[in-house]
């Protein structure tokens, strides 16, 4: 508790600085939200509409004034409205977050199962063909880009085999390809496999493993209870960090599979210079 209290001020300061940075980066970037948003609707600029838009959303304010206006809103619990959709920023996120959460958890689950199995296999069968094969799969996993993988998956499962829907959201079947695309394409399982392997190899050298063996425990018990549980510590750290990343959305995979998550929404907002959305998500 005391620790938390001590950390609070610096955390607040960090959030404040981060929110100011993301707000000003977007505010100062070339490009005019009024133009970008209005021409997105109809690709010809309508100057009267742009003027109106600029006034309505106070886009002509100087940076500091605009930021303070936004900040005071946030402090009162109002994250403002998206310039692009006119909806509240908080509602926009709330509407998309479940989809992102489902995909992130499912991809992580798959990545952990695959990565840990591969890593264990290669550590326990070190130096054998199994090890080389598992490591080869892991290296391949690190070099496959997700957009390419996504297309290949659709080609295989939807067009050739005809077993999975090629896009959409709703049923467990829709979840399978995006899950694989993120787990492999985001290099999640490949990295988990590598960390698991290294960590296992390290732990297996430890004295307590030797001691456990000396006590005559079965090889299975030594590996699973003694070695595996301890080896998982760096893996859990990695999974935690990656999960945080995944929760901010997976732009490309979401686009390819028409998955209604936060990633594509953020990118669209970024291109439209929709700074209430972009700042809100970072500051919150």
């Amino acid at each position, binding site marked *: 508790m005391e620790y938390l209290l001590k950390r609070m001020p610096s955390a607040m300061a960090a959030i404040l600085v981060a929110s100011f940075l993301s707000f000003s980066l977007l505010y100062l970037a070339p490009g005019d939200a009024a133009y970008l948003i209005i021409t997105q609707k*109809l690709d010809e600029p309508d100057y*009267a*509409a742009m003027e109106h838009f600029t006034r309505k959303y106070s886009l002509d304010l100087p940076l500091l004034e605009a930021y303070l206006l936004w900040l005071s809103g946030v402090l009162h619990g109002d994250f403002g409205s998206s310039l692009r959709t006119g909806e509240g920023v908080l509602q926009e996120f709330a*509407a998309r977050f479940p*989809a992102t959460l489902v995909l992130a958890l499912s991809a992580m689950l798959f990545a*952990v199962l695959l990565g840990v199995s591969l890593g264990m296999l290669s550590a326990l069968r070190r130096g054998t063909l199994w090890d080389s094969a598992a490591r080869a799969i892991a290296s391949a996993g690190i070099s496959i880009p997700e957009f390419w993988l996504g297309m290949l998956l659709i080609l295989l499962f939807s*067009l050739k085999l005809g077993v999975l829907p*090629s896009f959409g959201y709703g049923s467990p079947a*829709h979840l399978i390809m995006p899950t694989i695309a993120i787990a492999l394409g985001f290099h999640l399982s490949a990295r988990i496999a590598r960390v698991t392997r290294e960590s296992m190899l390290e732990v297996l050298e430890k004295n307590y493993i030797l001691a456990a063996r000396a006590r005559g425990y079965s090889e299975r018990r030594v590996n699973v209870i003694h070695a595996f549980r301890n080896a998982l510590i760096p893996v859990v750290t990695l999974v935690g960090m990656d999960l945080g990343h995944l929760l901010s959305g997976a732009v490309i995979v979401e686009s390819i599979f*028409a998955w209604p998550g936060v990633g594509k929404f953020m990118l669209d907002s970024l291109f439209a210079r929709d700074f209430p959305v972009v700042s809100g998500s970072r500051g919150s």
Partner: protein
Amino acid sequence: MPPRALLYALLLAGIVLLAGCTGVERAEAGQAGEQVLVVGGAEDFLEGEEIKANVFEMLVRVNERGEVEPFLAESWSVSGDGTEYTFRLRRNVTFHDGTPWDAEAAKWFWLWKKNTGTGGFVKYIRDAEVVDRYTVVYRLTEPYPSLLKDLASQFKAEVISPTSVEPPWSYTGKRKRLIGTGPFRVEEYRKEQLAVLVRYDAYWGDRPRLERIVYRYIPDENTRVMALKRGEVDIIGATEHHASIPFERIPELEADPGIVVDQHSYGRIQVVEFNCGRGVFTDRRVRQAVNHAIDRQALVEKLFRGYGVPATTITSPDFPFASSLRGRGYEYDPERARKLLEEVGWVDTDGDGVREKDGEELVVRYLVPIGEANANTVAVYLQSELKKIGMKVEVVTLERGAAYEAKKRGEYDLFLHHSGNIPWAPEGLLLSKYHSSSTAWPYACHSDELDRLIERAIASGDNEDFNRVYLKLQEENVCIPLYDIVKTVAYNKKVRGYVHAPTMYEANFRTVYIEE
């Protein structure tokens, strides 16, 4: 992770999964034999404009020649000073919730626009008056010649029910519901997933044969193509006004016996704008040289395998306002191009293949905004064509926002754009690009003479005057026309009766039916 924690994670994932999975299939499932069209679209239903043509209608509409025709208004008259428009409304029209379309609803619409709208005509709105049940007068603060064109625009003036705002009938109400007068009503909308449109049985016009339209949002262009091939959607490319099917995938779609590829020209031409305010292209002869240096026939054949039509005039001569351009296209004549450059003083003195003048090399900066169709291949082609006449092209690709800023500051010699099409052209295009008051294109070609011609044409609205403007623009070589960006629609063979709408801003499925 200890096994127990893993179990918890699994459980949690399972719960979230179940919670997140509501029955999409239910929304789409039609009964056997039901007439259902599944559309694959690049925009979310609310963000897209084209698909909404099935739900919302306007007071007037334009035909394929850009002429204004009756729609929810049967006829209209304009007062002598151009500030009073009297509309006689179509009878027996109701909104999807049963609210009648009458003079009261039309008056509310005008005043609601005044308070909440952003369209071009909005700032000229003064007031409205109900004359009788089906006659309404719209008053303007000053004459605005483009009013009818604006009122024909889905984006600017789709008519919504006074009951669709909160509170109902409020002039300042926020739009909360999707209630229009069109042949289909919105039954369900899920953000960034789908919209289900159901036939509105009390529709005033011809009853469509389709009973249901399911609009599926698929942002990725390649996924849309694959979804069509697999039969998950029935039609793609219809609900975007830009070329949303990649040209390079057209042969593959055409080879598929279950798919029909249907192309239509809207006279929208891909052009490259010159910077006439600064740099080498301030001299008309240099611009002309470039226009003579490009083999557009070869461009279409080499880059698009023959899809697309080469364009040599700055807009399509099929438009009545630009028919004077017929037979006046720029000819491919690289010899003439070289002569013109030499005339201006650009000569290759050091023999490196690039011309010089006063110690400066003939190098131009070609700005391409990200996301323009076929932009990269076209850029490379331009580079190679202009190299042949001793001009070096540096291609700069920028994200849209940044490209727009660079354009306003004139930091380009060439800029990829398009020629516009109805209903925005000619008035909107001429004013916002080639009139000197333009804020988006301060470095496009401008002159006092052009300003006068444009102002006169817009004031008179006469095609003869517009033709004079376009002829002048063509002579001035204000841009490099390249090819006609044909709209490409691809659909399953079972989809019958698809007709291209008069403008590329609507996707009209009124005439479509399904025949298995």
